[in-house]
């Protein structure tokens, strides 16, 4: 028994630091994973310029893809964008958020607009959309557009369902009137093309 105690004493070095050690590890891990990533993220540039004249595929589903063509001075918020799903663009004071939606089959444009009315309230409970008007892009894509109002911002919203009905591009933007005109210009550039062979 004495030998056993001696062995255990050597196997487990005594000391009141025993409980502090895992707490120290805890603090280091939390600091690294929360604070460390935060510092590194903020040290990297948050936006990347989009080349003027560039066409960007923002969605590609079931043989169709949606493209936007940018003019000068547009930036992409790289950190908060996800390819093919969600994009945040900026130009001047304008902040454009674009989401690729996959509505249930046979959802009408107006039903999607009603859905968008709810979706904009998720981020800002005071946000509301006006009734939509029909719009057609330069490339002939039909969609809906309206005004966005909230206690904090005014802006615009637009919705372009893909011709195959498999997805839709929804956009909301806030900013000064001049910059919102630039957003409208960008949205008018939207086009839906058949994806090349092998495209999803």
């Amino acid at each position, binding site marked *: 028994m004495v030998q*056993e*105690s001696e062995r*255990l*004493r050597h196997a*487990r*070095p*005594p*000391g*009141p630091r*025993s*409980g*502090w*050690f*895992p*707490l120290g*590890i*805890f603090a280091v*891990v*939390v600091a690294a*994973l*929360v604070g460390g*990533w*935060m510092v*590194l*993220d903020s040290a*990297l*540039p*948050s936006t990347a310029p989009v080349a003027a004249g560039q066409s960007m595929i923002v969605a590609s589903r079931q043989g169709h893809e949606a493209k936007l063509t940018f003019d000068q001075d547009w930036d*992409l918020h*790289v*950190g*908060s*964008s*996800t*390819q*093919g*799903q969600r994009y945040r663009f900026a130009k001047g004071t304008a902040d454009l958020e674009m*989401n690729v*939606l*996959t*509505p*249930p089959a046979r*959802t009408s444009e107006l*039903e*999607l607009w*009603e*859905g*968008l*009315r*709810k*979706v904009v*309230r*998720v*981020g*800002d*409970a005071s946000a509301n959309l006006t009734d939509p008007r029909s719009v057609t892009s330069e490339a002939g894509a039909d969609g809906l557009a309206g005004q966005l109002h909230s206690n904090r911002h005014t802006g615009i919203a637009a919705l372009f369902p893909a011709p195959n009905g498999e997805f*839709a591009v*929804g956009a909301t933007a806030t900013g000064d009137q001049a910059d919102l005109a630039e957003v409208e210009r960008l949205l008018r550039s939207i086009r839906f093309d058949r994806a090349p062979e092998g495209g999803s």
Partner: protein
Amino acid sequence: MSHARPEPDAPFSADGRVPSPRASDQEHEAIERPTGPPWGPTRHRRAPRLAAAALFGLLCVVGFVLMLNALFGAVLVFPGEAALSILLLAMVGVVGFLLLRRIRPVREPDLVYSLSALIWGMTGAVGLALVANGHLSSIWNKVGGLAFGSVWGAASTAPLNEEPLKVLGVVLIAVMAPLVVRGPIDGFILGALVGLGFQLVEDFTYSLNMILMQGGVDGMVAVVRSFFLRVGLTGLGSHWAMTAVAGAAVGLLAAASWRPGPGRGTAAALLFLLAMGMHWLFDAPLLGTVPGIVLKALSIFLTTMIVYFLLRRAHRSRVRRALAREGEELGVRRSAAMALASRGGRDRELARVARPERPAVRTRQEQMIDSAEDRAFDGPPRPDPP
């Protein structure tokens, strides 16, 4: 078992002596009792426990606020859908909680700390992961480009952030209540409960996200669809399984009083890496078809089950050995003492006792199990008694 005494209602020792008495609230007293050899004045051990408890409470509150901030807007706009999702996931949560506690060999873990593990998974781990994941995903997009970040971001982010943040809950519990994490099986069960809590909140988040991805249309269908995908299709091989394996690593370290030898340290590191590897596989853009996703979930589940059965066998062996020693000291037949290592064995022993005597015998059984589990991790593993 077949050698159990025909009259187990007789005193547990030849001289009528019973194991050292405990207060009425046995479990909690057991948790507060110091482990192993005396390491110094109790007050020196109390400070880290209090610090761990304070950190635990604080981070659970912070995590809850962060979670609420992220989800509250969607819950307000889609209250019916959110209620349906909560209802469905609550049922999964209750079943999972009962099941995961039940699979601990010998006896169920302490209820209070089981709930604490679940709560850490649902609040502290989720809140911290929301912040950490947001920044790391952003870093991958910025460094590797949007295409890389969008395809590999989840697999490169979640294992690195979520596995450590979830399993830190088990670390805090092990510091707060050392006797709750006596060994790897305790870490496994508590880790599984942390993972379950995390999984429930993540599933809830996914159900709300699916409504938004559908454009806010047919929200109820989106919730049911999300539930089927996240629970029916991948639920078996999700967070509960990964964090169970990571928790076993913490259990190994805690059992060595956080000073493991090379063997135990390596085993703990390998278990933690295995958990991260499983998480990577789960999130990797590989085998993206439905059969592929099911295959990934099943492989994670099977890996976790292999780890579980190895730990379960080792734990039961240790407890049976400790019970045999306990029995020798108390004058209880070896086979009768060892039978107490299973719930069935204890129930069978109890069934042989006259009904009025059962509460007292149950108490004595619990005392022997307490003592045996205390002793089970006091030394290196030895061969099973015959």
